[in-house]
């Protein structure tokens, strides 16, 4: 695919766009996601994303100090990343760009391999720290929208997916 064939150096070079290969790889390999800023309100964007990702068989563990101890979509809510007893493959940040800084540092501390900041969230300094520590960073994207874009679901709703291929669409299946 066109968008897949980007120079290898690109992954580190910038955060204005990401090759589809990188997004696909993350969505395929990640199994357990910690969602920081997950809301218990059904009409909040984080709830939408969590529900969707669960339907795609990801384990999503919510982090939100305000509702810690409670449950969102059947999952126990933790007050911080450090308190989660399980291994986290990706930290999905549903907070503003400033708050994303310290959360990224926590993600580095718990050894999460991927930090993903939501649409509208971008913190280049934090990204640089994470990348220096060997993490992969995605910013200003939504994993739900990216998943739907790559498997063709977004096209069901009339969106430009940027995918041109004569092959049947495949879901970014997990390893």
């Amino acid at each position, binding site marked *: 695919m066109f968008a897949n064939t980007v120079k290898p150096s690109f992954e580190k070079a910038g955060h204005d766009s990401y090759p589809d290969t990188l997004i696909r790889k993350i969505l395929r390999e990640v199994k357990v996601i910690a969602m920081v800023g997950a809301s218990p309100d059904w*009409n909040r964007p984080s709830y939408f994303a969590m529900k969707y990702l669960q339907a795609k068989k990801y384990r999503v563990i919510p982090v939100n100090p305000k509702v810690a101890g409670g449950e969102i979509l059947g999952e126990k809510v933790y007050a911080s990343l450090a308190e989660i007893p399980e291994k986290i493959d990706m930290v999905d940040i549903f907070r503003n760009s400033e708050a994303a800084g310290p959360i990224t540092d926590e993600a580095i501390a718990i050894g999460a391999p991927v930090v993903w900041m939501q*649409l509208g969230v971008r913190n280049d300094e934090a990204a640089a720290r994470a990348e220096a520590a060997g993490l992969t960073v995605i910013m200003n994207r939504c994993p739900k*929208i990216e998943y739907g874009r790559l498997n*063709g679901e977004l096209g069901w709703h*009339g969106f430009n997916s940027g995918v041109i291929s004569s092959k049947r669409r495949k879901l970014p299946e997990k390893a």
Partner: protein
Amino acid sequence: MTSNTKPGFETLAIHAGAAPDPATGARSTPIYQTTAYVFDDVDHAASLFNLQAFGNIYSRLTNPTVAVLEERIATLEGGRGATCVASGHAAQMLAFFSFMEPGDEFLAATKLYGGSITQFSRSFKKFGWNAIFVDAEEPENFRKSMTPKVKAIFVECLANPGGVIVDIEAVAKIAHEAGVPLIVDNTMATPYLCRPFDYGADIIVHSTTKFLSGHGNAMGGAVVDSGKFDWAQNDKFKSLTTPEPAYHGLNFYETFGDLAFTIYGHAMGLRDLGPTMAPMNAYLTITGTETLPLRMQRHVENAKAVAEYLEDHRQVEWVSYAGLRSSKHFKLAQKYLPKGAGSVFTFGIKGGYDAGVKLVESCELFSHLANIGDTRSLIIHPASTTHRQLSAEQQKAAGAGPEVVRLSIGLETVDDIIADLDQALAASAR
């Protein structure tokens, strides 16, 4: 694909949005002739109704065949998403419905397809939407007409009945300074000749009935969103930026970001107004778009030859085609339509009303009808048909004086097109 470059327009026109059917492998897009779609279980249904999952519920809102066309058109325009609807007029209604409230205003160019002028000045009034018409020849006129209630500016880049081009880059700047979107009707140019998003337009509407389907056999319309307009920059666009009661307090812009306008178009516009595109029409239009580049090349090539022929004809008073050096819009045409100034234009016939009527009645190849953008060449004499209810002054102001003839040049052999006009002009002088 293995190349490093972005796919070209011709490749996108054939492939964007369409992939082999996941279930059957069918290569051409199937016509999903169905009204409704099963839910896996109650929770799946709830997720769909709450817009938390992607998927189909009912074809008034979304349909897999229509969705292929939506992605195709969104891609060709370089936009984020599109909503396809039953006609070009439905596209205009849906575009405004996303943010207009009773009492709101919008600015519209005076030179528009006549049906759009009527829709804006009469039927939209019933919704409490007030159009203020502005002479777009001078873009500054839009700034002068701006009011606090204005929510958008609407223009046709290449205006029907042809020959007039609006400086959309200048108008976009004025719209953005006022914090409102520029809506461009790109029906006459198509994305092959002009891509208004490249010049700052925010929303594009189409009558796909014309060149996109291209064969005079399928009604349709499209609303395309660039995804770039910031709906939260002021408090003018509350339906997109405040909790929506019909979805339990969902805030579209906050939840869906640059997808919000298109999701609103389906989840609110199509759901509640109902002008859905039929899957069969989507299929015909998908097939049409695959040859859009080839057809548009030939359309403009033929149109230019016909315009040049008419310009030299002694029975012709004037020709209004922006691709002619003599046109006052020639310079704007070079900028916005470098591949050609479309294939719809008007000319003035000597001998006025009677000569105009005789001309259209004497054509053998040209079809006498009220449409544009067909493989067939089309002709109409507005004063005796589409504009006959208007007074003489109104006809003149609308560019439909007694001597005006409108052509939509088709894809026949150009010598045959010219020969038919030639014999019909001779007959009209007898």
